């Protein structure tokens, strides 16, 4: 039985699948071997040996406190990108400021076309369209401060 998870390590999220062959993270396949010696776990993976410990409420990787967690994720599609999208909600992945909007409502857009520019921490990030389609609605204006996950643009199939 295959199971899919979201894992968070060092603050970043990864897709993880438990397969018969081992554990697949993003597109890499691993076969970690774990030994528990009563005090800590030794893991052999990818040619390295790691030490994992649990102390108080912390997880320590090679003696260093890290941020790690995971959850099962029913929302992960089996084959990524293989389904035909009917619409897309463009949400801010990070908080920031809208410094440019390059499309108007009703515009046709191509897959991977730049929709708007989101500035965060002095970096300009071009937000690209995940599909070809038509701009359904734009709910932000230039100069707006947006929060993480805030809806910015809706796109639908032509």
């Amino acid at each position, binding site marked *: 039985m295959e199971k899919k*998870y*979201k*894992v*968070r*390590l*060092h*603050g*970043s*999220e*990864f897709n*993880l699948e*438990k397969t018969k062959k*081992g*554990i*697949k*993270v*993003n597109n*890499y396949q*691993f076969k*970690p*071997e*774990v030994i*528990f010696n009563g005090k800590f*776990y030794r*893991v052999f*993976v*990818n040619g*390295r040996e*790691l030490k*994992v410990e*649990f102390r*108080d*409420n*912390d*997880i320590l*990787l*090679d*003696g*260093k*406190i*890290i*941020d*790690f*967690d*995971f*959850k*099962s*994720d*029913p929302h992960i599609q089996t084959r990524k990108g293989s389904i035909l999208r009917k619409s897309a909600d463009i949400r801010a*992945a*990070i*908080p*920031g*400021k809208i410094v440019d909007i390059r499309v108007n409502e009703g515009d046709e857009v191509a897959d991977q076309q730049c929709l708007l520019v989101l500035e*965060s*921490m*002095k*970096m300009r*990030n071009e937000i690209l369209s995940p599909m070809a389609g038509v701009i359904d609605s734009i709910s932000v204006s230039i100069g707006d401060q947006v929060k993480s996950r805030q809806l910015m643009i809706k796109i639908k199939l032509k």
Partner: protein
Amino acid sequence: MFDTLLVANRGEIAVRIIRAARELDIKTYAVYSPVDKNSLHVKLADESFPLIEDGVTPSYLDIDQLLACCLRENITSVHPGYGFLSESEIFAETMIKHGVNFIGPPPKVIELLGNKVKSREKAVEVGLPVPLGSEIIENERHGIKEARLIGYPVLVKAVFGGGGMGIQRARTPRELRIAIVNASAQAKSAFGRGDVFLEKFIEQPRHIEFQILADNYGNVVHLGERECSIQRRNQKLLEEAPSTAISKEERKSIGTLVCKLAKKLGYKSAGTVEFLYKDNQVMFNEINPRIQVEHPVTEMLTGKDIVKEQIKIAQGEELSFKQSDIKFRGHAMELRINAEDPLQNFQPTPGYVSRFVAPGGPHIRFDTAIYEGFEIPDCYDSLIGKLIVGAETREEAISRAQNALKELIIIGFPNNITFFNQLLQDRKFQQGDISINFIEDRKILEKLEKNICALASALFAVGLKKSQMNLPSLSENWRMKGKMDAIGRD
């Protein structure tokens, strides 16, 4: 002597300036934007004043508010730090006009150095090599004519630009036409003036810069070079000194020319002369008339306090040492710790600092403005700390930095600590064989991703083993940690 100083900046450099001023018995005044209310520089300064965000001029760029604060509080000097108003001759001039000492070079010098074509000319005059280049380009035809003389590929650069912005590369006349139009438009929008010029594109150069100090009496010294080739998105990530590319003789000969240039310009205060380096040849790039993020590298190497020197020079003190008094010792390295996700093309990742432990030990310095419980605002740059190490050799500096990274804990958002782990263990990096394309050339991010995925699989496997031992059946939602935060479980 100054008795009061306004810190017209925020973050770690504001903290740095406060420390320097306090050692000189100067009372420090911080200013802060609404989101910076709980910042460390506000806590450390003797007094602090809020800046109002009027929606027009961002607060730290608001000359009127800063001036009003100085006049109201009788503050007699101002340090601009880096970024913000540090390279604004208008700011410098305004403060001076109202009797506030500006800690930096004279406004006329800042203005001249803002013009990249004129800076080049001055460098040429003292005998510093420059890349092949042009005057200001009048139109596309003029550009194509000049490019033929220089030879493709060429860069189209903003005359009044800086920080890698408004630069376009062109390989053919056709590309050049478009590049000139685009670069000019970008320059106009970013710097207010659309003038551009051409420069020969150098493939895979190193970025090397010399630190100088100049007082008001014509004394100029250089504090050696810094190697800043490890960059991402045209911004520096790791700086070190000395450079593995520069010999003692080159240091001396380039250093001498750099001091000559500073004298010719009537330069005062601390400054940095930037070069590209390729095939055993430095080529002048530009001068940064301000303190730089990476100044601690040179402080570690020389024992100096460059920010204190800036203040002392502005106070009218003569440099207390000569070129021959400067003792370079060992090797120094700075790692810029950023709130950014290397695996998402270094996308910035502001957030809440839920855990913070700084590293310690011999020849370790950690400059920061964060603390546990601090919320990093999303409207400023992603630099959250600078790990600086000193060592007897470059090899020791690397091992010391690796060890310090093991001690450094920052939890709450993605950051580039593990990126540095990956970088420092790269064989070519360890050999000092680097260029500004290093991260791409050595596929550091690809290796990093694989390694982090491996760690994730290892930790997951441990969780699996742990729960099998502790629980009767496999639960779908384990709780690895007591304290949960960002991700939000199902």
